[in-house]
């Protein structure tokens, strides 16, 4: 019973979905305020989702029907599973095992893969283009993002999220000991969520709506929801690893919100990068920075 509650109500399932919608609202509202607008009302993401769920779902000609309907469900399932191992809202995660950091990161990548495949299975050339861009972007930010998240893991000498957060909680914030890793992790998270300036995969002015061009109704709603959940999971992960653990739920919520503020501000500051610029940026600077950070940590560990 208790386990079921954890899965369906708090901190997994329902609470997570509501917080994900709230996070979308906060981000959109902040963006609007930064652009000198009033911005959406607080229930806007909920209304969008419900409306999409109540709309007709068009299955276009020439797609693999089963895959077309299954991909959104799979991506939502993947991010909800990823949420099980991270300390959402600062409470103890539902599961914890050696190596869950890697599993979480790859479950988050499953969302990206599903998005890409969603574009590639249709006949639509815009969607196919979007799908390809999603994939090329995935290959560019994935390695640096993973390296940046492994920095704290190496420092804590464990691959288990709870151990790393415990280590982070009892030491100086890793933001200060590994500043480069933090920057790479935050920017990598933005790449993962396809937020501007890394929104080339869904560039409205170029390729309609990217890989989700053919999705309407329920499928689109599920994809949007999973992206919001991924936002919350990613923020939680980075905040827990880099901003000093999860000892105090209230302080943790503030830290996560602050991180969301940073991400939204970066979003408002920069224009979209071309896909080749994105890849160049990550492989020229992101990977090198993350690797350099890693060597420094290893040397520090060896010296200590």
């Amino acid at each position, binding site marked *: 019973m208790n386990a079921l509650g954890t899965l369906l109500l708090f901190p997994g399932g329902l609470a997570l979905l509501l917080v994900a919608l709230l996070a979308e609202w906060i981000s*959109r509202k902040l963006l*609007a305020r930064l652009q000198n607008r009033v*911005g*959406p009302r607080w229930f806007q993401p909920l209304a969008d989702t419900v*409306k999409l769920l*109540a*709309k*007709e779902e068009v299955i276009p000609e020439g797609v693999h029907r089963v895959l077309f309907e299954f991909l959104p469900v799979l991506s939502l399932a993947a991010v909800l599973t990823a949420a099980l191992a991270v300390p959402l809202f600062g409470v103890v995660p539902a599961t914890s095992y050696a190596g869950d950091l890697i599993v979480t990161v790859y479950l988050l990548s499953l969302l990206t893969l599903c998005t890409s495949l969603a574009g590639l299975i249709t006949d639509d050339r815009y969607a196919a283009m979007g799908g390809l861009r999603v994939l090329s972007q995935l290959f560019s930010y994935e390695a640096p993002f993973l390296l940046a998240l492994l920095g704290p893991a190496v420092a804590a000498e464990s691959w288990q999220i709870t151990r790393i957060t415990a280590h982070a909680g009892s030491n100086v914030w890793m933001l200060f000991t590994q500043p480069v890793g933090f920057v790479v992790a935050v920017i990598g998270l933005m790449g993962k969520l396809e937020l501007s300036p890394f929104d080339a995969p869904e560039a409205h002015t170029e390729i309609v709506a990217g890989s989700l061009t053919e*999705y*309407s109704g329920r499928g689109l709603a599920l994809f949007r929801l999973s992206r919001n959940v991924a936002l919350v999971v990613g923020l939680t992960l980075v905040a827990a690893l880099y901003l000093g653990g999860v000892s105090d739920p209230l302080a943790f919520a503030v830290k996560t919100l602050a991180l969301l503020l940073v991400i939204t501000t970066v979003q408002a500051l920069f224009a979209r990068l071309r896909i080749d610029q994105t890849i160049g940026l990550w492989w020229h600077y992101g990977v090198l920075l993350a690797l350099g950070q890693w060597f420094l940590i290893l040397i520090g560990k060896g010296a200590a």
Partner: protein
Amino acid sequence: MTAMKIEQAWNNALAGVALWARTNSPWVLHFNTGSCNGCDIELLAALTPRYDAERLGVKLQASPRQADILICTGPVTRQARDRLLRIYEQMPEPRFVIALGSCALSCGVFHDCYNVVGPLDRFIPVDVYVPGCPPRPEAIIYGVIELLKKLHPVDVILEGGSA
């Protein structure tokens, strides 16, 4: 008997929720059927920070599959007719259409042009007409709100958030 009543109440509640969501999240798609670009500029102005249609939930979508409201500007030209029908048919139900500007209403200054095949409502059903050459952004937003009011028996759209 009671089971039927409960089912009906449940369906009513569901319909109410769907209506609430629909009236609060109108995503628009803009299609130029042959406009002189005047109306298009005004429509874009209505989406800029000054008027900020996002406070009503209005969002410009790029894909017909994801839009609820099709906003058409200009008279329908021979070239645009087939595309117009195709875009309209690509939109998922429920879908609505707003005709923007005198040209979409009656062909305006392009009346009787050799390449113009008629006003918008000759080809697809139109829900709201916004006159003007071109209509001001306020008029466009007003048109969207009139459309949302039409969906709703009671006038509750603007109460949700004065923001």
